[in-house]
């Protein structure tokens, strides 16, 4: 991916204030607290995976109805850092150091979500607080899960026996406990193999639906245009109807997964649909 030319960020947009932005056309260039421009065109590529992760986490849109901690998709990283092998290797070493966790999503073939471990533990806290009101003994399982399973099992999936072994370090495990974990949204069964589970991010269902619908909407929008392309700057200002996430999130994701490609033109970056 090319490094964008650093020009005046006159028409850049921010993730947080999108809705107010749309009403007023001539807005001053949008910057965050430190005065740096937040447009996609200017901040397209990063040098390091961790830097990219932190910045994208900060730019994660805040969704009102659902409380989800920020996560980053793997394809977004691929579009933001030049060398994909370097991204893979750095993710692997960060995962081993327990800085972040990787989850496999069920939207599409090779989708993975990356979340910092603190955010994930935070999310589990919220879930356990919510479920505390319902039944008495169950919250203990979530504690065992947090303490024993997550700290030792770093892979995105886990087998049934191993799960039971790790949970039983906290107390006696029954099938109901596993049902509770699945209901809380922390585990889900694998379709191919009934004895394996995927780790999942709880409360993420509507966000994933928005993700796949937003992808389709953006691709169909570009496909309907005459030459199946559009300049990045005006494209970024558009709002997606079906997705709670902002355009920048979807653009990074689709460019990284290869459905869109960018081309450098004298007046900025151009986004084109890839036809193969």
């Amino acid at each position: 991916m090319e490094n964008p030319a650093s020009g005046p960020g006159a028409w850049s947009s921010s993730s947080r204030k999108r809705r107010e932005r749309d009403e007023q056309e001539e807005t001053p260039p949008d910057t965050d607290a430190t005065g740096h421009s937040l447009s996609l065109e200017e901040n397209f590529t990063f040098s390091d995976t961790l830097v990219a992760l932190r910045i994208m986490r900060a730019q994660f849109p805040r969704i009102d109805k659902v409380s989800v901690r920020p996560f980053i998709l793997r394809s977004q990283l691929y579009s933001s850092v030049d060398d994909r092998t370097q991204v893979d290797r750095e993710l692997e070493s960060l995962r081993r150091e327990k800085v972040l966790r990787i989850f496999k999503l069920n939207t599409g073939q090779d989708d993975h979500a990356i979340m910092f471990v603190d955010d994930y533990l935070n999310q589990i806290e919220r879930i356990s607080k919510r479920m505390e009101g319902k039944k008495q003994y169950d919250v203990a399982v979530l504690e065992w899960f947090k303490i024993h399973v997550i700290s030792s099992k770093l892979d995105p999936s886990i087998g049934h026996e191993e799960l039971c072994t790790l949970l039983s370090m906290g107390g006696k495990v029954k099938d109901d406990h596993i049902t509770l974990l699945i209901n809380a949204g922390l585990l889900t069964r694998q379709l191919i193999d009934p004895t394996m589970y995927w780790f999942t991010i709880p409360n993420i269902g509507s966000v994933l639906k928005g993700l796949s619908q937003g992808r389709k909407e953006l691709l169909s929008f570009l496909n309907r245009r005459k030459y199946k392309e559009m300049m990045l700057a005006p494209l970024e200002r558009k709002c997606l109807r079906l997705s709670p996430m902002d355009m920048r999130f979807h653009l990074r994701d689709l460019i990284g997964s290869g459905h869109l490609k960018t081309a450098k033109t004298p007046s900025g970056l151009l986004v084109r649909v890839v036809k193969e």
Partner: protein
Amino acid sequence: MWKGIGKRESGELRPSLFCSRIRSSRAASLQLSNHKEIVSAHRGSVNSLQVDLTEGRYLLSGGADASVAVYDIQNSTHCEEGGRVAKHKSIFVIDKQHEHGHKYAISSTIWYPIDTGLFVTGSYDHYINVWDTNTTQVVMNFKTPGKVYRIAMSSLATSHMLIAAGTEDVQVRLCDIASGAFAHTLSGHRDGVMSVEWSTSSEWVLLTGGSDGAIRFWDIRRAGCFSVLDQSNSQLGRRPPFLENSALNKASTSKASAAGQSSSVKARALQRRAANGNGSKQSTIGRVRNQVKGSMKHRLHPGLLSSQDRATAHYGAVIGLKMTGDGMYLLSAGSDSRLRLWDIESGCNTLVNFETVRLQTSKPLQLSLTQDSALVFVPCMATAKAFDVWSGKTRLTLRGHYENVNCCWFNAQDQELFTGGNDRQILVWSPPNLITDDVDALSRKGQAALDEDNWSD
């Protein structure tokens, strides 16, 4: 280039280095050949290509219309366009009309590795035929219980003549040409086997990739597979680092031994499961195994322990395998549109990311490597892409086919790439011709007559 020749003359550059530099620069500049063309004799998609390993002269291709054709790629049959394009027509074609020919699509064709007197074809009509090239007659055939996806023979083999066949059945069969029967079957996969490949470093080691996403290594002298590649076992770099090696190994061996011990105590007889065989029943098998786990303590042959290992190398089916010439690395293509590079000795994923967007999922692919294993040629939908093996970057995108490309073969002798696709064509990609060569003997004679000293009258 001239500087290189001068250096070689003076001894500054070693001859082998000079050769390899020229080869790699030629391989890096492939384009659709404008001086060589193969007239495809197939009326269906081309599924398999192979140039013979002994001389590098004959190209064998198998098509979806049950046709097999052999072309001579060094001598052309006729010229066109003023002697500038050499056309190669097939030396012979075998099609459905042949009395012992295949009835359905041919998925895989290979030459007998020792000489070009025999070739073997595997087809969706469940048969593997061994043909005599000179008489084009079927010498031997083997019936398998499912569609044959891929066959392979070891080019290193000196003591066996086994054809490994991957079919839609879960068992990999080894067919023996010397005796005409099946030597033995390898069980362990949980779904059909789409790719088989013999090791380039040992004549006894076979690699198979299945539709369940697992890649297994088999030593055919023992029972069971000795290694299953797991995509979560990864190392950061080409070879595992020395210091961390012990830590990594400890982690992976402790995982493997824990799994092994638990499965040996709680496993049931494998023979029964192998008899069941079919992948569609695996959900019930999984359920039964869970309940039976605690009660049955059958003694399992230690070689068969690894069939309990359910590690996957890809999230989808493994559709192509290629081992590097030195036997140290393995490239695998999966239907999850990923290409992975594995370090064979440590069994780890080296995490090199190849920028593949989509790979076709229903048919097995044939990958190809250059001789020094620097470039890998992968058919990606309607193009063939050349990736740098160690960094994963796309070096070349070869667009020429009208439809999906199925197979490719790199001829290391001339640095030419042959690709076959669903559009029934076999395209030749070669480095650009800097000097216009004489294409045929006829035109050569004509030009030679002009060059000749014609002062003697």
